[in-house]
């Protein structure tokens, strides 16, 4: 097995480096993790900030005399661009809202058109039915007239029947009178 082993010191070197790194960082941690260091850092930062502030003020003063734009001037211009961007954005959102309302309105219009189509269809149907009804009414009228005629005919027939009955009565009356006349003659 030992014959297959090759020379590779890098892994050990890496492990060693991890160890060194940890030791150095632990040392830094112990060195810096105290109130004194924190206060010293703050004082250093404050000093650095004041130095930079003075430098900037002098720069601004010099640039103003020389009539040169500074980073602050560029910042102001950039802020105007951002403001414009925001306004365009607001307008774009308003256009969206308008688009949405137009869409919803056109949808409503479409539904109204659909309903109108239905109404037209229904009206046409009703019209056809009305024509039919009119025709039927006319038929009914003619039927009524015929019925009236029939009624009249029936009335006439009734009258005829009465007359016929009268005649029948008269005939039967005549038949009963005749034997009485014959008997009186033979007794003389």
């Amino acid at each position, binding site marked *: 097995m030992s014959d297959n082993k*090759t020379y*590779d010191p890098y892994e050990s070197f*890496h492990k060693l*480096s991890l160890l060194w*790194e940890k030791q150095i960082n632990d040392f830094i941690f112990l060195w810096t*993790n105290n109130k004194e260091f924190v206060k010293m850092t703050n004082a250093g930062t*404050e000093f650095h900030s004041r130095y930079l*502030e003075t430098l900037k003020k002098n720069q601004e003063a010099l640039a103003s005399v020389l009539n040169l734009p500074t980073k602050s001037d560029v910042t102001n211009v950039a802020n105007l661009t*951002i403001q414009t961007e925001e306004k365009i*954005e607001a307008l774009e959102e308003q256009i969206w809202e308008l688009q949405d309302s137009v869409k919803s309105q056109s949808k409503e219009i479409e539904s109204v058109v659909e309903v109108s189509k239905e109404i037209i269809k229904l009206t046409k149907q009703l019209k056809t039915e009305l024509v039919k009804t009119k025709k039927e009414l006319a038929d009914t009228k003619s039927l009524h007239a015929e019925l009236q005629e029939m009624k009249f005919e029936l009335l006439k027939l009734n009258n005829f029947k009465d007359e016929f009955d009268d005649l029948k009565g008269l005939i039967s009356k005549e038949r009963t009178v005749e034997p009485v006349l014959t008997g009186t003659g033979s007794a003389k």
Partner: protein
Amino acid sequence: MAMATETPIKNLIPESDYEKEANRWNNVLKALTEPEPKMGHTPRAEVWRKNKSVLWHYPSKQRKYEIPLFFVYSLFNKPYILDVAPKTSVIEGLTNMGYEVYLLDWGAPGYEDKKIGLDTYIDKYLRTAVKRAIRHSGVNEITLVGYCLGGTIASIYASIADEPIKNLIVATVPIDFQPFIGPDKWAEGLRQGDINIDHFIDVYGNIPPKMVEGMFRAIGAPVYFSNYTMLLARAHDHRYVDKWRRMNKWTLDQVPFAGEAYRQLATELFKENKLVKGELIIGNKKADLKNIEANLFVISGSRDNLVLEEQSKPIMDLVSSEDKTYVVVESGHVGLALSGLFAKIVDQWASSRSNQL
């Protein structure tokens, strides 16, 4: 007899694998001299831009979920760590899984942005970006995904949002600023007023990137060189070298931090811990986490040496959400995004909450 004396000496001298060594030094040379690797390969389109911030849209390969994911990244670093390399990219993974992804890149603030505070970032940038994303995707709801400080910003926004946020996912998120991983006397000094950064911020405008980097170094490891020895030890593996180079580029690629936002972060969040107390005011609204009713998913890394688990966990008790999940994964602060593992974890939770098509 001659053989007997030769063998032990031969055994004592370890053999060198010349091919391996050639690869090692070749890759080290490449890492030091070749141009930096290209990041952000997933196809994307710009949806909206304001000042230096850009809202990007990463379309899904084949859309499977209705509700899109909206990523909010930290203000300290650049968000391309979420799309760091093919196959391990978080965003690529999620688009392949069928999610529409949006990412708000805050951009690098310039001197003119020194007045941008957390409230401006949330009210004027994040809110507008979310509105744009909702309109762009044509849906009625959205899932917010916040990473690191982006998670804090996403949580603050979710507590004051009028927009329909269905799910809130936060990873390695500092919510409670009382626990601190750095030197305790520093934290004490800042809280007791022994350190005053106001004057410094006023003069500088923004916190320069080198100082942001220095701040993180000071908290974790002021002296840091083991990454280079690690590279040397594993340089024979070209895949590791590629990963190392990407990670190294991202770590050194810091952005300036807007002065006003930094002041708020240091004073209102770190010093006064207002978010946990429900006293933070954003615009004219109180950012109380109990206003959050969205489904909540919180992820912490067990090996996170920047944001402690105790800093993330309190959000679970502070929100009003009925559906809330907390998980701890075997990962570091950046490893979650760097390995692409984050995509799988997000998908496991979000797939049943994103309206499958």
